[in-house]
């Protein structure tokens, strides 16, 4: 306990990673919002029509994180019916 009182959470996280230790600090939302890991993976996202920051898509596909498509409550753009039929295959 005395040892842990001498290091910050971020130091514990960084050094724990370097030493391949099992263990994580107890984060606040501020810690999460500034986590370099999430920043590197561009997890937090904004969308047109909103000044707010959101959690981004939960998966990365072929190296790219899908963009958030619209702000909460905003209308969802849909492809014209004819185009959807053309691009579709088996249901």
């Amino acid at each position, binding site marked *: 306990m005395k040892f842990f009182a001498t290091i910050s959470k971020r130091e514990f996280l960084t050094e724990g990673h370097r030493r391949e230790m*099992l263990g994580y600090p107890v984060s606040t939302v501020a810690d999460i919002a500034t986590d370099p*890991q999430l920043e*590197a993976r561009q997890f937090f996202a904004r969308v047109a029509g909103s000044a*707010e920051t959101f*959690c981004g898509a939960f998966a990365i596909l072929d190296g790219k994180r899908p963009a958030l498509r619209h702000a909460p409550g905003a209308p969802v753009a849909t492809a014209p019916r004819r185009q959807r039929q053309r691009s579709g295959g088996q249901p």
Partner: protein
Amino acid sequence: MTALPQALAGLKVLEFGGYAAGPHIGKMLANFGAQTIHVESHDRPDGFRVQYPPFKDDRVGYNRSGCFAFFNDSKYSVTVDLKKPAGVELARRLAKWCDLIIENMRPGVMERLGLGYRMLAAPNPRLVMLSTCNMGQTGPRADQPGFGSQLSALAGFCGMTGVPDGPPMLLYGPYIDYVASLLGASAALAAVFKSRRSGKGCHIDVSQYECGLMFMAGALQDYFASGRLAQRRGNDDADAAPHGAFPCRDGEWVALSCWSDAEFAALAATIGKSGLAADPAFAALAARQAHRVELETVIAAWTRSRTADAAAEALQAAGVAAYPVVTMAGLFTDPQLHARRNFRVRRHPEMGDHCYCFPGFDLAETPGDIIGPAPCVGADNDFVFRDLVGLTEAEYESYRSQGVFG
């Protein structure tokens, strides 16, 4: 075993890895008919087989683990020694046969084994691979090893759990693994759907940490918007009072919440204290929060004289959100779970009759099932490699003599 057609019949799934986060995805797919093969070896079995209790009759053994059984029913098990070049070659043949690979190794391990997505997708372009790990495949801490029980702390869950003046509380079990595996299953199915339409698979990178943050989205959004730091507050809630667990007869507990003044009035009437709803000390949310101790004392006096089931039933009948705090034993006697066949007994070669857990969702026209018990380690080598992959007898014997099925 169901005789009805299943939604995922014909889908061929391969799993590399172990524990919960990867295998739980494969289990859900297997329950709906996907032919799911769990790849391990005698030297490197799934960690759940040997590391975590409970074990049948408290004796540790590859085929005696309750944890392994929980996440691996309805699958086949094969053993392939990936340290041998011939083992890697055999794994590639399996990958050519399948539609979807789920792996939860540390990032880079599949590539180092010669089983990276690009290599496997070259001869099988429709292949979908889902990689799930603590941090995701990229980023400065991508290779950090870890388990869900501690990852829940990094993702903010533990800091929000506990009383304000006390320490953060660790959650029961690898909570975040369940968030990530349910999201992972939906991503995998969407990618398979797209692959069948387009002929092109993809690699899905799932970070269990990021999946867990979906659970924290409200608190994070509040922080970004206002700078407010969400704090743990015991059982209290900003928008509900009362909101907590109350002692009942025989050491039982009931959890209840009132999210409006009308719900509180219903609770007050149910406990025989209708006057509380008009009392300025309790009528409105802020007043109830200010007089929390007095209010909880009154409610506890009522709950203590009842069983948890009776208290919950009376409150539910009045429109108040309430449930008994159920023990493990209580889950197995819950009539609701029984009616929905949540637990299904299947006979395991070593553990005997064992209760398996069905997913919390089902399909009306193509219902899922616990197709079979969790497999014994390597039990399906013959069937998978001869009948599914189509090895000739000479090939099978060659792999066997090289110790590939180790």
